[in-house]
């Protein structure tokens, strides 16, 4: 009998551990998992159009609560996050990047830089994002770097951003975007230009 009781006890402990770990992993709640993401990919930008909606799965809801609390439903805003440059290397504040995009089908859009804890980086550069108000119609471009370029207007500061990511927000997406995001949104490219010595 004690042997059988021990077997139940071990199986129970193992079951709870597996259940808890799998829940945290599938919901993006592990300490090492820190990004939003999703099944929709736009040139390296990932998003989930069910974010903030009643149709979101319990796993998506848990992930968004952790990484994007108080996100809006997709009729109002959609979100895409990118963690790597065009060559597939993770973003780091030790490198300079050029982000280039085309016209984005939404009433307003922005690209914002966040650190590895999902917060704005601790700097006072007043250059935390780039938004539609600074982009002319058609192609636009900005520099993502820890130091300001010659034209500060087109700068997203990565100072103190560490292993940062970029989030693209589209507010009031245009008609058809929710049905065919890949066909209607050209995800901005992010080219790595240079890196500090020893960090490439």
């Amino acid at each position, binding site marked *: 009998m004690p042997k059988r009781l021990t077997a139940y006890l071990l*199986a129970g402990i193992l079951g709870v551990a597996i*259940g808890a770990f799998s829940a945290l992993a599938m*919901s993006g709640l592990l300490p090492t998992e820190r990004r939003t993401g999703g099944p929709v990919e736009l040139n390296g930008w990932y998003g989930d159009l069910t974010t903030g909606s*009643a149709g979101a799965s319990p796993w998506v809801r848990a992930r968004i609560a*952790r990484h994007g609390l108080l996100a809006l439903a997709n009729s*109002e805003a959609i979100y895409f996050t990118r963690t790597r440059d065009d060559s597939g290397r993770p973003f780091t504040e030790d490198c300079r990047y050029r982000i280039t995009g085309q016209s984005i089908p939404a009433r307003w859009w922005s690209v914002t830089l966040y650190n590895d804890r999902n*917060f704005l980086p601790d700097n*006072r550069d007043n250059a935390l994002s780039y938004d539609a*108000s600074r982009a002319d119609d058609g192609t636009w471009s900005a520099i993502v770097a820890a130091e300001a370029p010659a034209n500060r207007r087109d700068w997203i500061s990565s100072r103190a951003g560490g292993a940062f990511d970029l*989030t693209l927000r589209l507010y009031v997406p245009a008609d058809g975007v929710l049905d065919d995001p890949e066909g209607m949104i050209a995800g901005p490219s992010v080219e790595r230009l240079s890196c500090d010595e020893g960090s490439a």
Partner: protein
Amino acid sequence: MKNWIGPVIAGAVLALVTHAVVVIAAPGFIMDRAMSVLKKRGSPLHDFGLSPRMTAETQTVVRPSPDLAYSLCRFDLDQAEQGLRVRMAAYDNYSSISFFDSNTNNFLTLRGEGQAREAILLPPGAARTAGPPGGLPEAVVAPNATGVILIRRLAPTQQAYDTVAEIAPGDLCQPL
């Protein structure tokens, strides 16, 4: 081998139950912590407070947009048993007002479109009714008693934020 069938089944059932409990409870747990932080930082109950421009120093929840001006009202319908009257003052640029319950459900969002928007928020279980005569808003029933109401206004510059600061006193989050 036969002796292991019972423990294996018990372990599998516990794994499934634990998985479900963690996934379902996580949003509420995270929201509860966030609301505690908001309260500690002075976010008012049943009143809108305009947050300062979003920077590393002023952010209270994850992934704020530095291009938006946020006004937030915490609600607790156990302390406002008749419900709340909520209004977002008119703003010329993009604005929206979103209602979130304590499980992070975004159960109502209204867009400004340059106009003031109003809603009556009723406690869970209340009968949903049409708004009073005179064009006043339709009522919405909250899924649970606590949560937050968040106004977002596009304000990518200090000048735009200053404009928001001028009109934000017209926002309302008041027990009926």
